[in-house]
């Protein structure tokens, strides 16, 4: 775990005084630890599978540990579902679909979904703490972003449940059946909400597989669903690794597969279900361009760059991982970015002042380290924020590279960590060309004071989401999804309903 910190370069004195002009973000008034207490949080020592409204022991007989990536402590053991377990879950979902859910009036489905939304709000504090313990993200993010958005997705889709006939003008809709949903580890509960809420609203039943490293909040959500007294089998949660996911995606009685995760796994799933009746939506990787023009609101753009790449340790598929900056303001932006990064606080995810938490897993840390090493080998100049790294757990300091070119690996491959690659451009069209010069197309950001330029860029950029003078903003009313190898299908908004409906 020995990371070498790039030493902060001495600043150039700009005046004849010879004084060093550098801001000092030191210890003059340091913040004392402000930990969110996990005392009232209850995590079971072991979790079974939630199938048919009951908690069952896996037929596989196997369990695996889930750990806190900031301390490497074991939090709990969860069931490792095999193909038989998945089959049980799909059968339960099918029965629930035939018996209850497909026959229920939309207004009645809505009541259940609203109930889940309210319960998430009531238990928000507990869920936020568990999210930060299991996944490593700062409590301020799980508290202020993940949890409110998760509840908002249930509220929003509950509202649609009895209005689906008006969603696609003049066209009738019907539900699909059983949805098999596989979600990633970067926003565990929020991704569960993105998947489950529209599926239920549209009259489908669900088998959801949370990510191997972050199963706990999905299991707490299963308890909420149990307490909300949904008919048994409407939502089933099966935990496990890649094999569990493969069994779910390839199960013959699943009508719809929804996957969020890496592009390589997404491709495997698409291959596996090719030629079947199954519907598919994929939300995969990204290498988003965050484009800063010289006429941008510079200080706010610097905040937006930080939010774009260091939010959730960069474990964000739509992260602004390629900074395209107009060459005339490159040096200014880099200087300001360094000073802004000097104030980022890395440490315990449960500390309310932590800005950057732990890397989600050992494997992901190794992936980040490998790509950062590749960037250094290619001669790019690395800068890492001067954060002391805790001795236990998985950590990587906020980092950026300058001097990269479009052909650098760090400019092409998704790093999925707190690592920014800075590139320059000269004209808007060059910015468009470079932004689109990627196999991905999930998101992009544009920073300029000129409204017309934002609209011009938005028409040219091949990305599913384009933010103007902001970044990483999410709302259940706004469709989210990608172009090219970032996947297809939309989640959220009216457009997101189409992924869970047959539109006749």
């Amino acid at each position: 775990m020995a990371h070498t910190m790039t030493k902060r370069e001495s600043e150039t004195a700009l005046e004849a005084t010879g004084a060093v002009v550098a801001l000092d973000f030191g210890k003059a008034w340091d913040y004392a630890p402000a930990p969110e207490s996990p005392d009232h949080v209850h995590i079971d020592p072991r979790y079974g599978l939630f199938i048919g409204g009951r908690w069952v022991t896996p037929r596989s007989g196997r369990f695996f540990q889930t750990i806190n990536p900031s301390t490497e402590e074991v939090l709990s053991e969860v069931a490792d579902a095999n193909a038989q377990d998945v089959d049980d879950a799909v059968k339960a979902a099918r029965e629930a679909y035939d018996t209850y859910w497909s026959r229920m009036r939309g207004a009645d489905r809505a009541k259940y979904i609203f109930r889940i939304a309210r319960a998430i709000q009531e238990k928000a504090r507990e869920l936020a703490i568990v999210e930060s313990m299991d996944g490593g993200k700062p409590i301020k993010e799980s508290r202020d972003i993940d949890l409110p958005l998760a509840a908002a997705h249930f509220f929003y889709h509950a509202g649609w449940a009895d209005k689906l006939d008006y969603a696609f003008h003049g066209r009738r809709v019907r539900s699909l059946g059983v949805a098999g949903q596989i979600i990633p580890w970067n926003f565990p509960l929020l991704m569960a909400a993105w998947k489950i809420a529209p599926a239920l609203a549209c009259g489908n039943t669900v088998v959801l597989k949370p990510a191997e490293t972050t199963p706990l909040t999905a299991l707490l959500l299963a308890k909420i669903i149990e307490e909300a007294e949904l008919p048994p089998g409407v939502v089933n949660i099966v935990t496990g690794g890649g094999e569990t996911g493969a069994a779910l995606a390839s199960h013959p009685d699943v009508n719809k597969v929804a996957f969020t995760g890496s592009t390589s796994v997404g491709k495997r799933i698409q291959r596996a279900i090719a030629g079947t009746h199954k519907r598919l939506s994929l939300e995969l990787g990204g290498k988003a361009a965050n484009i800063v023009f010289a006429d941008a609101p510079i200080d706010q753009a610097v905040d937006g760059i930080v939010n774009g790449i260091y939010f959730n340790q960069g474990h964000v598929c739509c992260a602004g991982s390629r900074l395209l900056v107009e060459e005339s303001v490159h040096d200014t932006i880099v200087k300001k970015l360094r000073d802004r990064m000097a104030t980022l606080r890395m440490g315990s995810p449960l500390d309310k002042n932590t800005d950057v938490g732990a890397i989600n897993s050992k494997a992901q840390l190794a992936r980040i380290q490998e790509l950062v090493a590749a960037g250094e080998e290619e001669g790019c100049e690395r800068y890492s924020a001067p954060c002391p790294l805790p001795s236990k757990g998985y950590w990587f300091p906020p980092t950026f590279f300058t001097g990269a070119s479009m052909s650098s690996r760090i400019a092409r491959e998704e790093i999925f960590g707190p690592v920014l690659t800075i590139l320059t451009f000269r004209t808007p069209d060059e910015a468009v060309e470079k932004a689109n010069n990627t196999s991905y197309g999930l998101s992009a950001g544009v920073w300029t004071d000129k409204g017309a330029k934002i609209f011009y860029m938005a028409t040219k950029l091949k990305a599913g989401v384009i933010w103007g003078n902001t970044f990483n903003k999410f709302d259940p009313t706004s469709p989210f999804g990608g172009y090219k190898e970032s996947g297809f299908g939309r989640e959220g908004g009216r457009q997101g309903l189409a992924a869970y409906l047959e539109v006749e």
Partner: protein
Amino acid sequence: MVASHAVSTLEHRSDIGETDEVLESDDLAGPPPQEQPLFKAGAPRRGGVGSMYALFAPPAVDAVALEERAASLGKRSLKGETKLAGLRLAIAMMDLTTLEGKDTPGKVSQLCQKARTPLSNDPSVGPCAAICVYPNHVVTAKARLAGSTVKVASVATAFPSGQSPLDIKLADTRRAVDFGADEIDMVIDRGAMLVGDFSKVFDEIAATKEACGPAHLKVILETGELGSYDVIRKASELAIAAGADFIKTSTGKIQPAATPPVTLLMLEVIRDHYYASGRRIGMKPAGGVRTAKQALHYLVLVKETLGDAWLTPDLFRFGASALLNDVLMQLEKQRTGNYQAADDFSKD
């Protein structure tokens, strides 16, 4: 008016280190590479009367993102020792203020005593940085504060509106300094700012700076009257370029007065000026800061925008009257574990 400014603009471009590039035949080989300063905005010029400020285009400000950042810094969790140290710092940074038509020597004297010893049972608390009064009360305040470190700040330049001829404003300033004021809190001509007469704004500040002599100059922008963050940014840069030692948000007579986003923006201008020149300008939010919690929020803005060097009364002040007792109440709460009654703190 406009045309004459354009002319003076060109004349002054060389003053701020830029030259018009005219391509001549022997320039085709290109100029030798030059070390360009990264931050060109607001190079300091302490011009006298008649100075003009060049046309300038400061970076744009995005209101939504600015407000979001200011609000996010209000979420820092400050506990225990951090809170105590912050509260003590806030007291040391306070310009205890009374600016009323009904101010009297008695009132001002009591305020001076409060500034010297904010908490009668704990002499380690305080003193405040300064007291801020009208010119007529400078002599009283100066006498009452003799032997202490508490400075006397006087408002001047036809405070609060600034709607008087320049010679009156300058006389106002000189008299306040003659009476013994250590610091002058002037107001800018907001009317001139809003019609785009930046030269007038600049010249008046520069002239006031000259009239201040040794006294420190704080320039009040009255941000609540400027209407947008872009204009506030421009006014901040003008004030600094014209010689301000501090820039200050408000008179306290207009709502809204100081707000976290406005303060953050002004701190960012100060940062750009520091990058460009190495010179540290001070900041004073005034008006509307009433609670200890608000004061700590402002300190977080300073700490995370400008860093350690600005966490001192030399470079950051609060202009307030009601704030002190709330901070004292929080200090006593930290010390004793209980909130004291409001009447346990002197109301001066």
